[in-house]
């Protein structure tokens, strides 16, 4: 079975993964919004 430190490390990694995910989601949404805005402002 996993030792305590391993479990802690796993916990930490999962936290980092969630952070990465939010960051990437923010990038995707920014691209979408920026793109729509550029279309609206150019028109």
């Amino acid at each position, binding site marked *: 079975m996993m030792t305590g430190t391993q479990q802690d490390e796993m916990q930490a990694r999962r936290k980092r993964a969630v952070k990465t995910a939010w960051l*990437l989601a923010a990038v995707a949404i920014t691209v979408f919004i920026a*793109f*729509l805005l550029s*279309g609206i402002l150019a028109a």
Partner: protein
Amino acid sequence: MSTESTLSHDIHEHDEHHDHKPSGFLDRWLFTTNHKDIGTLYLIFSLLMFFIGGSMAMIIRAELFAPGLQLVEPDFFNQMTTMHALIMVFGAVMPAWVGFANWMLPMMVGAPDMALPRMNNWSFWILPFAFAMLLSTLFMDSGGPAAGWTLYPPLSLQGGQSFAFVVFAIHMMGISSIMGSINVIATILNMRAPGMTLLKMPLFVWTWLITAFLLIMVMPVLAGAVTMLLTDHFFGTSFFNAAGGGDPVMFQHIFWFFGHPEVYIMILPAFGVVSEIIPTFARKPLFGYSAMVYATASIAFLSFIVWAHHMFTVGMPLTGALFFMYATMLIAVPTGVKVFNWVSTMWKGSMTFETPMLFAIAFVVLFTIGGLSGLMLAIAAVDLQYHDTYFVVAHFHYVLVPGAVFALMAGTYYWLPKWTGHMYSEKWGKIHFWLSAISVNILFFPQHYLGLAGMPRRIPDYSTQFADFNMISSIGGFIFGASQLVFVGVIVHCVYKSRQKATGQVWEGAKGLEWTLSSPPPYHSFNEPPVIDSSTIAHADSTH
């Protein structure tokens, strides 16, 4: 082999004990957060879509079997070409790669599961709804989309009410892909076992990492573009409507800014799979591992600056055309590096030719043919002849069918014993390979001739001078379509009937963390991070 098999049997029994598979059908499949079950769902879904999109291709080839209209009205023909493309691109090839990613990435990097298991469930279960909605348009009064998968306005704006369903379906597919890629990146960047440094990762992991970044950059652009089409159609805006002062060419720029990376999204994981399979059956490490990684990254980078080569005929300034021509030609360099490296991997190896290897070799040959015709298409002046003819159809089908789809089949045969714990039937696998490899060339090679001789694409009927090669192509198409039933047969046999147990190692020459697990692997891949040991992974020495 036999000693190993008993050993893996023991491990198997042992793992079964620690598995906590949900017992009910709904719990197991609808609410699953397990990367393997979700991977299976993705793969089954994409196989289903492959057959739905394929039957549309059969309708297209049947109508084109002889000059004259025999079977369908031109408008329905256009719906078929449009839906065939949308379903094959977004329903068959992309979800299949996500399925592979789900199954393999956690095992390859030594993680217990994907980083975000609940989002993983969500990103799959959006898809059946998206495609149910897309397919339902075929039964609506105004019919399905008929403006081509590129949805060029103003033509696409002539579509009826069903257009809103198409746009919404594309939004859902986009959301699904973005969530899938976020999961892939989060898993690869955060969940690797200690010691699995970036430059020790298998090439499949690398190509998927780069693919996922491409997806996150371009899917929102597609979403934006179709949103603008939606408001142009239903809310009276004029982004692309020339009548209201909009710019229809701008849509093409936007679409291909998404569309060109999109074609690499479909082919980069294929590069990854082939780079796993060839070393295994050549029993020799992949030649030039880091060059392969850099080549993949440069192809991905170049994919963002070549989009306008899809639109040389719209009339762009000379400098623009020259820039896009040169940039496109440059892609030949990293792609060449990949092909040369695969050949060098085979060179002086100790090769055997099981089904995965046969598909991988066919991939290298036929993808290269598609790549070379792509180089021809890059020459802007001559593209004014090639553009929108069957030469283009032949080109992209060569890179997508014996390219991406053959790589998917190679990967399926390669990992099926790992997934199921049984060996597939090698004899029927080979029959499937030879039928597919021969018929795919009968299907697509004559289309080069048709295009050069002047047959435009997306036409339901043609002049009699094109009759012979169309008939040959259709015959090839029917054989290719029927051959895929063999594929299903092999899979079903392997899953339910095969009595030949697979060892953990499966293939003599295979290297990588996934082969250190039993076949089938435990429900949670690596509960404890594996120790990265240079004898078990393929790219332990990353100095090259």
